[in-house]
């Protein structure tokens, strides 16, 4: 922590005493009103913007505070720049940190704050149905069902980027798609069959996650965290619980952390298996996909045996776990895992022997390494593009520092690389589970310590990458909860990955990242 503080203090020319340590390996520093542009310039080279969010009435007085959370490669601690706004205006940083674009639009929608000099000021999660001047995250708005606009005049419709030129035409796709998948709109500008530009419009599934949590006890919010994205139930619930546990100084018993880790890795296995199956389905090779689907179904059944839910719902709670897992169920999991790597190997073999599959996966949908930093691409997508990042290793939480984890990195950044990275990560997760089930500690699975007030940042490596959450507890209730899932960052990578590819490869590229719409739309 001291290393980060002294380094940043030198970089930003601020006294070390102006930094304040947070609850969970994060350092806060308040930036004076004028210095934002200068500070961003200094941070640009070495820091990545992990999240940007707004909190109302943070310092006791009326007003807005912006928090810019930065990650520095090789540094386990996070830097959070805090800025008190004098009114409802501030300068945009999206030209220096492009990943800020969505965050700023999100803050504009939620709080009505204007970002001067922003290159995109369109509304984000509030679609046309919401009236102008409506800002749901303001404390003055009481969360309740509301009337929306039913007849939207054409001039109020969302304006997509126009691409003009000879032979250029547009293909609008969605929000309702042909398959059983989530809703989102893709606007392709195409020349012949080649994609020239893609603009993605999300937030069709906006359910009001962050507002719903306000005024509830942290315990009541765990089911909301689980519903951020169904296939990342354990990751999001764990991230939320870590933040509250750090705020309250709750020690989670060792057995609970072991079981949480088993759940988190099971989630990674079934999620990655679904991705592998999806990619192979999308190149029209259902025989090759079925091996992965069979294994995924078996993992979902293991989840149900351990927790009663195929998606591990209703099992993680603040302080540990709601219920212990019976020893015979863990033995069953351990026995099941012994034959798993060989069976996965056979399924992978079938894929690798098919020249038709290799032909479709290889060189398709390249995400260039240079984009990883500016867009803050995370998880397997970043690793497949040559960037060795993994929250489990970079910012260890729980008991992950005890495992000899490796980062599986590929250089080319195409669909094939993402396929291979995910396949290797499944085997790593199997290894972690096998080690854990062999050395389970006995004892309690939940701490009974009470919840205290405060705020903290927490990060967890979900199957799709880094999940960031920031929780503020005030008077025993959640005052503000910011969620930023890996999908929120990686969606913008797809816009770049598809360029120059043909339209029929879009489903494959999309599946190779398999992002959560629910986790982005909140």
């Amino acid at each position, binding site marked *: 922590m001291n290393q980060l503080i002294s380094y940043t203090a030198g970089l930003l020319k601020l006294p070390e005493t102006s930094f304040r340590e947070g609850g969970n390996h994060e350092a806060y520093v308040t930036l004076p009103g004028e210095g934002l542009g200068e500070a961003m310039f200094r941070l640009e080279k070495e820091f990545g913007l992990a999240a940007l969010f707004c909190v109302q009435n943070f310092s006791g007085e009326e007003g807005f505070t912006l928090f810019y959370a930065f990650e520095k490669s090789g540094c386990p601690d996070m830097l959070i720049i805090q800025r008190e706004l004098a009114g409802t205006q501030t300068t945009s940083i999206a030209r220096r940190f492009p990943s800020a674009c969505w965050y700023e639009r999100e803050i504009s929608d939620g709080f009505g704050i204007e970002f001067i000099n922003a290159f995109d000021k369109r509304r984000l*999660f509030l*679609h046309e*149905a*919401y009236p102008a001047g409506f800002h*749901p995250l303001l404390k003055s*708005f009481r*969360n*309740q*069902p*509301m009337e*929306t606009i039913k007849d*939207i005049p054409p001039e109020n419709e969302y304006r997509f980027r126009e691409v003009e030129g000879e032979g250029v035409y547009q293909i609008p796709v969605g*929000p*309702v798609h*042909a*398959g*059983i*998948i*989530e*809703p989102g709109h893709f606007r392709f500008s195409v020349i012949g069959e080649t994609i020239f530009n893609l603009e993605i419009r999300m*937030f*069709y*599934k*906006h*359910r*009001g996650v962050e*507002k*719903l949590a306000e005024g509830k006890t942290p315990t009541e919010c765990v*089911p*909301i965290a*689980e*519903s*951020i*994205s*169904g*296939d990342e*139930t354990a990751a999001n619930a764990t991230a939320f619980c870590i933040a509250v546990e750090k705020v309250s100084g709750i020690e989670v018993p060792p057995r609970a952390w072991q079981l949480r880790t088993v759940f988190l890795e099971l989630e990674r296995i079934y999620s990655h298996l*679904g991705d592998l*199956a999806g990619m192979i389905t999308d190149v029209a090779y259902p025989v090759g996909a*079925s091996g992965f*689907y*069979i294994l*995924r*179904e078996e993992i*979902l059944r293991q989840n149900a045996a351990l927790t009663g*839910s*195929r*998606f591990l*719902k209703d099992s993680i709670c603040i302080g540990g776990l709601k219920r212990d897992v019976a020893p015979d169920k863990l033995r069953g999991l351990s026995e099941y895992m012994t034959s798993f790597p060989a069976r996965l190997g056979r399924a992978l073999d079938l894929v690798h022997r098919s020249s038709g599959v290799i032909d479709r996966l290889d060189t398709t949908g390249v995400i260039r390494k240079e984009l990883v930093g500016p867009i803050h691409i995370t998880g397997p997508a970043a690793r497949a593009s040559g960037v060795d990042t993994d929250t489990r290793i970079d910012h260890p939480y729980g008991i992950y520092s005890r495992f000899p984890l490796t980062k599986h990195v590929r250089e080319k950044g195409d669909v094939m690389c993402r396929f291979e990275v995910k396949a290797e990560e499944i085997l790593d997760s199997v290894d972690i589970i096998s080690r854990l089930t062999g050395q389970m500690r006995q004892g309690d699975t939940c701490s009974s310590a009470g919840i205290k007030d405060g705020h903290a940042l927490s990060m967890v490596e979900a199957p799709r990458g880094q999940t960031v959450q920031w929780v503020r507890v005030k008077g025993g209730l959640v005052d503000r909860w910011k969620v930023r899932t890996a999908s929120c960052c990686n969606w913008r990578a797809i816009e770049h990955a598809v360029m120059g590819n043909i339209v029929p490869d879009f489903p494959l590229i999309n599946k190779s990242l398999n992002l*959560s*719409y*629910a*986790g982005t*739309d909140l």
Partner: protein
Amino acid sequence: MKVYQADMLKQFSRIFQPKLAERYADKDFEALGIELKQSISSVFGRSLAIREVDSGSDNAAEIELVNLTTPYYDIERFGVSFVASPRHADVLVITGSVTHNMEIAVRKTYEAMPYPKLVVAVGDDACDGGIWKNTYAVNGGADRVIPVDIKIPGNPPTPREIMLGLLALMKSIRKK
């Protein structure tokens, strides 16, 4: 060349091996599937075409619906298929609490369906809004926006529960 022939022979001999799906057969599920197939036959002649629209679920319900088509379940054996357009659908499956941002798309999908326009709400949030019930962003249940014939609760319902729901839908139509 020799290797290639040996490989061919191996592939060919698989025809006589027990089928992969038989290895995973589950007697109760098979019985349920056959019952569903018979009830579909008595109402729709032969098959049931389903269109799925997600109106704001947490995506777990979609995963379970996809699972119905995977080797363990393979629901197409029982006359149920998932189709790509509402214009080809007998049944519209809605997941999610119908967010305001999805409301128009849900209405348009329903309007595009041919009669009898059956609608099934899958999952707690599609049934009555679930945990999102009183937020500003959702309508709170599919029946707030379009008529719903049957509700299959669960967070999310398992593939088996979805099958039972479809069976109940067929039975309710037959009674009418």
